[in-house]
Structures are given as structure tokens and as C-alpha cells.
């Protein structure tokens, strides 16, 4: 296993399957009355958030606490960063306080990579989303959700997503979720199609291991999972598309469109959703939509990542047999 988790592209197929399998083990902990493992007791993890993100921060915090780590939350707003302190100084200050790992969210693409490779600090770095670059734990939780739904909770163990057809719809240009998913899904053997207005597809996309289409209706019947990406309203002012309504008509998912998908196909969204823009309430609230499951799975996947990066070789969850013996 690697020392840092910076990009989904850095994961091999076996790394990724190991994380997903470990996440299944972690998910079982959530079903217990006491949702806590002693694995990271005495270890300190800092959630270094230079960008507002309540849900990702809380998800990491829940994962860390379930592994019994001590958690420090650092939000840039109102901190020394807003007084001009650099990323380097902030990171070194935190490391001097004895932090064992840093979970970083940053608005600048590449900031976690810099933190991990520039020699500023020694601690493992986990990327919780950087600019428009990568968000690897999001891709892992998405893959986890797809494997559970499309392959099976137990049947999926040890397996990847070979042959599954996944469609990502929306603002690919500004999306770290799209980049991470394209990388990871390709590694796991899925076939990925990006659907977006041409203005929201990056120049250079032709080298990505995926297809690009501008026709949502044509792609939907051939999709096992359709992931809707959030479209920020402010993009409209930069002329990426004429109006919200036109975007919604051409690239939004409503009930009628959802009906074109195969019966087993699922609808995903990394959140937060803009209801009425890329997704209608009818779709968001349907049982084909996995958005709430994705949140729950996020905690399991992040526990798995933290455990594998920090926990060493000991088993995360004590085997059932040992427990039985203890209770004898």
C-alpha cells in the first residue's frame, strides 16, 4: 500500500479492490451497537480544510473517530491562513504538534501533491479534494456503491467493476469528482462515458480512458449507473451555457429520462444536489438514487483508507472466532 493517497490514478486494481473489500468490513462495524474500533487509538489525524466542505469533513471525522483516532479540525477561515500564513507554515506547525496524518482539502489543484512531495512534512497525506484535480475517496465511495448495487455486497468481494457501463453527466471541466472517477473506474474495468455540453468538457479530454458524448438520451439506455455532477449556477455567467433552463432541458435527469435507463441501473450524485437543475426531485427521491447510501458508504471507505495507510498490517476487525472465544 502507498504512503499517501493523492490521486485515484495512483491506485492499482488490486489496491482499489483491497480498499473496497476493507470498506465492506468497516461497514459491518456500523451495524454494531458500538460503532468503534481501537485501530488508530493514540494516533492524531488533522483535517486540514482550506475550502468549505461540511459533508466531506464530517465524513472523514466520523471515519477517524470510529477508528478511535484523535481528531483535530483545522478550517482555514478565521485562522492564521486568512492572515497570510502559507500552506507550508501551516502544515509544519501542525506536524510539530505531533500529527500522524493530514487529510487536506484545498482550492488549489496539486496542493496535496505539493504537501506530500515537497519535503515540508513527513506525515502521510490524504487528498480530500483539490481544486479541479482529484477527489480520490469520493471515487472510491462511488465505486463501492456501484459494486454493492451492481455486483452485490457479498458477491462483490474481491471483484472489480469489469464491463459495467458508467455515465457521468455535467460539469466535467471543473469537476475533481469526474477526473477521479474516470481514473478509478477505468482501473476497475468499467466503461466510462462523459456527457456534457462541449463547453464543460476540457480541451485535452481525448487522452482520457473514456468516451465523450453530447447526447444524454442516446447514452442512458446503455448505462448501468448514471452519475449526475453538480452544476454551479455561477457557470452560467461565464457563458458555459445560455440559461439554467436550457441546461436542465438538455442535460438534466428527470423521471422521463430515468425511464430510458435499464431497470437495474442506478442514479448517483456526489452531492450537494441542485434540485431542479441537474436532477429533479422525482429522481433524487426515487429508490434508484443512491445519494444517501453514498454518504454512508463514504464513512466506510474513508475508514478503510485511513486504516490501510496508517493501521499497518494488523487486522482491522477482530475475526469473529476470536470474539466468540472471548465471550466464552
Amino acid at each position, binding site marked *: 500500500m502507498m504512503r499517501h493517497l493523492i490521486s485515484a490514478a495512483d491506485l492499482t486494481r488490486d489496491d482499489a479492490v483491497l480498499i473496497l473489500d476493507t470498506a465492506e468490513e468497516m461497514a459491518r462495524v456500523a451495524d454494531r451497537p458500538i460503532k468503534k474500533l481501537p485501530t488508530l487509538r493514540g494516533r492524531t489525524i488533522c483535517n486540514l480544510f482550506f475550502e468549505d466542505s461540511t459533508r466531506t469533513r464530517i465524513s472523514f471525522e466520523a471515519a477517524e473517530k470510529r477508528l478511535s483516532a484523535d481528531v483535530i479540525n483545522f478550517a482555514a477561515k478565521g485562522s492564521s491562513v486568512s492572515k497570510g500564513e*502559507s500552506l507550508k507554515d501551516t502544515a509544519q506547525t501542525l506536524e510539530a504538534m505531533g500529527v500522524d496524518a493530514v487529510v487536506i482539502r484545498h482550492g488549489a489543484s496539486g496542493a496535496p501533491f505539493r504537501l506530500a512531495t515537497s519535503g515540508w512534512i513527513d506525515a502521510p497525506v490524504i487528498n480530500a479534494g483539490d*481544486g479541479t484535480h482529484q477527489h480520490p475517496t469520493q471515487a472510491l465511495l462511488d465505486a463501492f456503491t456501484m459494486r454493492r448495487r451492481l455486483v452485490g455486497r457479498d458477491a462483490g468481494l474481491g471483484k472489480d467493476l469489469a464491463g459495467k457501463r458508467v455515465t457521468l453527466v455535467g460539469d466535467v471541466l471543473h469537476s475533481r469528482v469526474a477526473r477521479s472517477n474516470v481514473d478509478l473506474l477505468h482501473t476497475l474495468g468499467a466503461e466510462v462515458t462523459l456527457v456534457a455540453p462541449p463547453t464543460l468538457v476540457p480541451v485535452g479530454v481525448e487522452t482520457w480512458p473514456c468516451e465523450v458524448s453530447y447526447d444524454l438520451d442516446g447514452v442512458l439506455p446503455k448505462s448501468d449507473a448514471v452519475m449526475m455532477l453538480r452544476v454551479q449556477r455561477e457557470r452560467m455567467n461565464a457563458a458555459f451555457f445560455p440559461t439554467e433552463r436550457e441546461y436542465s432541458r438538455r442535460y438534466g435527469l428527470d423521471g422521463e429520462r430515468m425511464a430510458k435507463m435499464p431497470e437495474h441501473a442506478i442514479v448517483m450524485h456526489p452531492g450537494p444536489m441542485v434540485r431542479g437543475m441537474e436532477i429533479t426531485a422525482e429522481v433524487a427521491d426515487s429508490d434508484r438514487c443512491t445519494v444517501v447510501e453514498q454518504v454512508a458508504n463514504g464513512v466506510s471507505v474513508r475508514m478503510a483508507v485511513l486504516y490501510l495507510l496508517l493501521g499497518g498490517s494488523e487486522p482491522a476487525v477482530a475475526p469473529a472466532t476470536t470474539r466468540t472465544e472471548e465471550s466464552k
Partner: protein
Amino acid sequence: MKMSKILIRGAKVLGGEPQDVLLDGETVEAVGTGLTAEGATVIEADGQILLPGLVDLHTHLREPGREDSETVLTGTRAAASGGYTAVFAMANTHPVADTAGVVEQVYRLGKEAGYCDVQPIGAVTVGLEGKKLAELGAMHDSAAGVTVFSDDGKCVDDAVIMRRALEYVKAFGGVVAQHAQEPRLTEGAQMNEGVVSAELGLGGWPAVAEESIIARDVLLAEHVGSRVHICHLSTAGSVEIVRWAKSRGIDVTAEVTPHHLLLTDELVRTYDPVYKVNPPLRTERDVLALREALADGTIDIVATDHAPHPHEDKDCEWAAAAMGMVGLETALSVVQQTMVETGLLDWAGVADRMSFAPARIGRATGHGRPVSAGEPANLVLVDPAYRGTVDPADFASRSRNTPYEGRELPGRVTHTFLRGRATVMDGKLA
């Protein structure tokens, strides 16, 4: 003070057969074989290459305003180390060099430093804001005698202002040097737009933002019958446009930086801001087109765009970092590697692209002259056989933001002479 004579023995003048060159005071007294001179300091060139002192049409000396990154003194020491005898100092200082007062200050600082001639460039518009012409005539008439005008760092993007500037400077033989960057197409731009930017999620700086401005400006220059100079041309498409313009007889000249001749945007994958520069590093295809264009004369000159920045402005995340690289002390080595050792240019070609042509474009009197009797003794002696690894700690520049740290580059400046006085002797600043 009477200066003693210097005899350079066995130097390959412009890469030709070994000859002796005798300097007397500020001028070259004789060039030939078997020269002797009583009491002269003898320098055994031993087959090293003798070139006219290099001329850089595009240097940022940062003074006044950012003396933490460079001063006229440290910048000209760096220039001398790199074999330069004249540099043109860009106008984006604080305050901006948009008045006679500021250009005279920079000119005077250059004289005091004494390591190489400093020719200030004047801003085209007040405060580099692109709105209102600066007093171009006053800067030309000042002691600094400005002939090159540029808002470098910013593009003169308003077509009317650009047209007027091109027309206006004709009255005194001036030239506008354009930083070609369409501002709307490059909002939030962080690197070349293409395959690498798509993967890295960094804002793209598309080639078309440079090419569209160059196309417009060569047409403007043609329309008003002016000459125009294009700064740091960086794309294969720009080369095509300049080639077309020259074929039409348009009076356009263009420069390329050493880093655009060697480095590509693949290096940005490191997210190390030492590779962050404006215009950005482009693709392999662009690099090859630029080399070809410099060889065939479509691109007239090599200019460093020496852009010093303090360590803290580079020791950070990519988006927060300053754009620019130092280049004065590595330029000749990079040109040797990319142009001479590839067979694209001989040493006479190097002399043209790095001395004769830039001196001509900038009207730098006394520089870019042939190595012959009666000419000013502005010379550089280069050891092309030298191989070394770039160590920024050796730089004379106050800043260390080089993209070549740890890289092996060929060639070394052993001596630089400014009007007969050694500014560099045996590889060390005199």
C-alpha cells in the same frame, strides 16, 4: 586611468579558425594570427569560442520596487556571468517605468553598477493599465534614450491603443514589444491548455490567446507601416503567423526564451511552481517548431525573460506561486544544448540571435558589433566543452528560481568584456 592591453590567444571567433584578438582600452585593436603585445595580459583561449557580448532584449531587474528579488546591481552581475554586455530592463517595476524619471533612475543605476549596459524599456501605457499612452516621447528624449516600449507582463489588448502606440513611436524610431496574451481567454490561466492541464485540473492558457494577438498586431503593423516586436513567442501557431507576416514584408521581429526551447508542460505534472511561467511551457511539438523557427530566422532572437522571484513566492502551491524563471546565467548553455548541439545553429548563428539581432532591434549602439579591429571590445569567451550541473547557489542573481537545478547543461562563460574591461575573468565575476 590608462587601461592595459589584453591579448586573447587562440580563440575561435564566432566558431571559426583559432585567432588572436588584441584589446586596447575600450576597443578591439587587432584580430589575426601570431599577434603579440608587450605588457599585455594574455588569456589563453585554447580553442574556446569568442562571441560579441550578448544582448538581452527582455530582462526583469525588479528595481525599483522588488529589491528582495533582484536589483540592478545583482541582475547585471548575473547578466555578466551569463556573457551579456547589455540588457534591456522591462518596465513592470514599482513604480512602473512609465515616466522619464523612472527610466532615468534605472539607467543611472545601471551605469553605477558597471557590470553591463542597462537600457531601460518604457511602458507603453500609464501604469501598464492599457488605457492611456505613457509619455513615450519624454522617455525617448530622456537621458535613458528609450527606444523599446512594452507593457510586458500585460498585453496591450485594446486594438486602438496598440495601433496608436505603433504609429506614435515611428517619430523617433521606436518599437513596441508586445506581450501577446488575450486577457479574456486567459482568465485564471495556470498552464498551457491541453492534455496535461486537463489531467491536472489547472486553468488552461490556450495557444490561441497568444496567436490571435500576434495575428492582430502584425496586421496593425502592416496597416500603419510600423515595426512591431513579439515578446517570448511560445507556440507553433505563432511561428506560422510570424512566418506569414514576414513573407508579406511586414516589419515584425520575434523572440523566444531559452526555457521555451527546452522545457515542456509535462514538467508541470510535478506541481512544482519552478516550472510556472508566462507564457507557459508548451508541448514538445511547440518546442521543436520554435527551434526550427529560430534556426531559419523566423524567430529573430533569444531573449531570457529573466524573471527573479523570492523563494517564498515559489515554495508554495502552484496556484499561489508567481510566474517566471531566472535565465541570464543559463541562457547560453540552453541555446548551446538545444540549437548548437542539435546542429540547428552554428556559433555565428548564436552570435546573430543573441547579440547582433537583439542589438539591432533595440538600437543598442556599441553592442552586437563584429569582432574586428576598431569595434568596441564587448566580448564573451565561452568554453563549449564544459559540462556541469546547474547549482542555483552559484548564481549571481539574488533569486534562485531556475527550472534547471540539478540538470546538466553544456558550456560555460569564462570571460566577459565590457568595453575592454573584464566583468568576468576565469569564470568568476571580476
